[in-house]
């Protein structure tokens, strides 16, 4: 008998005679708590020692430019599907190199910053989720190798709790859930930020200016043909 058939036969012998188990779902389910609270979201992020800037939607591009210049970056990678304005650094054409489109890991190793959008964010836990098939979020390595990740979250992408986010992520093949910068508590349980992932997470929360807020999160667009 193959290992597969033997393990399955053992399972059939071992399991009880019961039929399906009914699962009580009395907890706060998706769609029952309204839109995510932006103030709570910002507070949770700060708790993780992420940097947070809350701005009007039409201020996103200038806010990104200011953040990157403050940080003194020399080379920035932007996910290819992000708006062109997100990686425009006016007056700095010679000092800062902006890379868009496909990049290699070697290039990422020599990059100080990455700019992306996100798919959905959770107020209660301060979590941001990326869909790596979306062109404005990029393949996984993009937001992993550089030491600084700037992510733009639109107000209407912020949901209340984990169930709302799980519902919004059904069918998304490759995801990264990010809650603050990389951290470890392996030494005497003392929290240290920055081990292997980006040591700095900067979040720009864009308040809607022209459109009314909806609780329906909208993901990125287009397939992403990224690096390897």
């Amino acid at each position, binding site marked *: 008998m*193959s*290992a*597969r058939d033997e*393990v*399955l036969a*053992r*399972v059939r*012998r*071992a*399991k*009880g005679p*019961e*039929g*399906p*188990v009914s*699962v*009580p779902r*009395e*907890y*706060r389910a998706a769609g029952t708590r309204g839109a995510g609270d932006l103030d709570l979201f910002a507070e*949770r992020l700060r*708790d993780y020692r992420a940097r947070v800037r809350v701005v009007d939607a039409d201020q996103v591009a200038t806010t990104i430019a200011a953040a990157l210049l403050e940080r003194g970056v020399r080379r920035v990678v932007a996910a290819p599907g992000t708006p062109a304005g997100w990686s425009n650094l006016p007056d700095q054409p010679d000092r800062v190199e902006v890379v868009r489109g496909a990049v290699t*890991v070697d290039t990422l190793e020599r990059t100080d910053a990455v700019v992306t959008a996100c798919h959905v964010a*959770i107020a*209660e836990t*301060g*979590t941001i989720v990326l869909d790596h098939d979306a062109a404005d979020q990029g*393949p*996984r*390595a993009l937001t*992993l190798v550089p030491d600084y990740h700037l992510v733009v979250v639109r107000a209407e992408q912020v949901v209340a*709790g984990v*169930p709302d986010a*799980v*519902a919004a*992520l*059904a069918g998304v*093949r*490759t*995801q*990264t*859930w*990010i*809650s*603050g*910068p*990389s*951290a*470890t*508590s*392996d*030494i*005497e*349980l*003392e929290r*240290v930020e920055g*081990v*292997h*992932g980006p040591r700095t997470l900067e979040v720009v929360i864009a308040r809607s200016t022209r459109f009314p807020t909806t609780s329906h999160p909208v993901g990125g667009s287009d397939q992403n043909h990224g690096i*390897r």
Partner: protein
Amino acid sequence: MTFLGMPAGGGNLTGTPFPKAARGALGDAQLRRNLAKATTTIRTKRAGVVGELPDWAELRAAGAAIKDEVLANLDEHLVRFEEALTSRGTHVHWARDADEANRIITDLVKATGTREVIKVKSMATVEIGLNEALADAGVHAVETDLAELIVQLGNDKSSHILVPAIHRNRTEIRDVFRREMPGVDPDLTDDPRALAEAARRHLRQKFMTVDVAISGANFGVAETGALVVVESEGNGRMCLTLPRTLISVVGIEKLVPSWRDLEVFLQLLPRSSTGERMNPYTSVWTGPTEGQTSHVVLVDNGRTATLADPDGRAALRCIRCSACLNSCPVYERTGGHAYGSTYPGPIGAVLSPQLTGVDRNPTLPFASSLCGVCYDVCPVAIDIPSMLVHLRSRVTESKRTTPESTAMRALSWVMSDARRWGRLIRLGKFGRLASRHVPLPGWSAARDLPLPPKQTFRDWWETR
């Protein structure tokens, strides 16, 4: 003996009998201080973030029921999971036990021609003894989780399922790094920041160059074939993303039926384990991405033997959060090594004997005071105390009563009362009292208590 004679699991699930192993730990004041500090910190954090959720009890009930559904129809969920994985291009392998899993993985690694693999922290691979098997085949496995790296460099063993180096303090860790980490700054300080930075540098090159990674998985979604790794440092993301070949070792009980079920576990797990609202990184992948080749190895290794016992199978609900370890008065005093298994603490006391058969782990069901705290904090409501009582009777039935298990019975009476415990620790008499009571080979060196021969242990105790 396993339940209904189902085949037992092998690998790193047994060790020195608990009473003997615990004696060393109880004499180690440094170890007890490290443990007390760490478990107190994490208990407080956990209580805080669990208290924040008004629907914790409901999430816990749902988590337990979802896992019961997985176990009740495990064959169907496994077949669905396999189909979903295969249809998305992942190669699926099955392993009856630790040896078979090691053989499969070693062959997959050797086929790539590499001599080095990078690893994401994985209990399953520690359980099956994968690093040792790879080493025998001439392949070096590099642990990339900071705590696992500390354990590996220090030639040590994990003592906690979440923080494997919890028994080491910062100075001990600095010494291990200075001694064992190639190219490390000889003036490295014991500041946790500096130590983490040293690990970052040490591993960066590995992430960029090693082409095969081995991971476990916290969850596998039967419906979609998605795998989930929950972590903090980003080493998991590195291993899952950069190497061309990814091999994931998954115990057959790790499934959840549908994607939606993660809405429960992604709340229960981080709050119960690190005491955070959410862990820094969770990776989800469905089939190979970015040009990778991906393999999943489904491992039994005693899980079906555990499933066969209706009064013991709920141990397979465990999501390895470690809340039961952090709240256990016995674990806090003895540390993880005393349990002799990859799985220490209360969950280890019920899981290890079931995976191996109680005859190969006859003392573990007695390594508890039955105080019940483990049950209260368990996010999937495993009734560990009742299960321990059940397993104690299985030990007795198996007629493989050993001197150690008899001694453990006396000890479990002591452990069942905090005051007795406290006194025992203060007196430093752990092990000695057991050796007074029954002839234990190898324990005689510690016999220095005058004890009238006719007096029972309990009488002696009451007069202390």
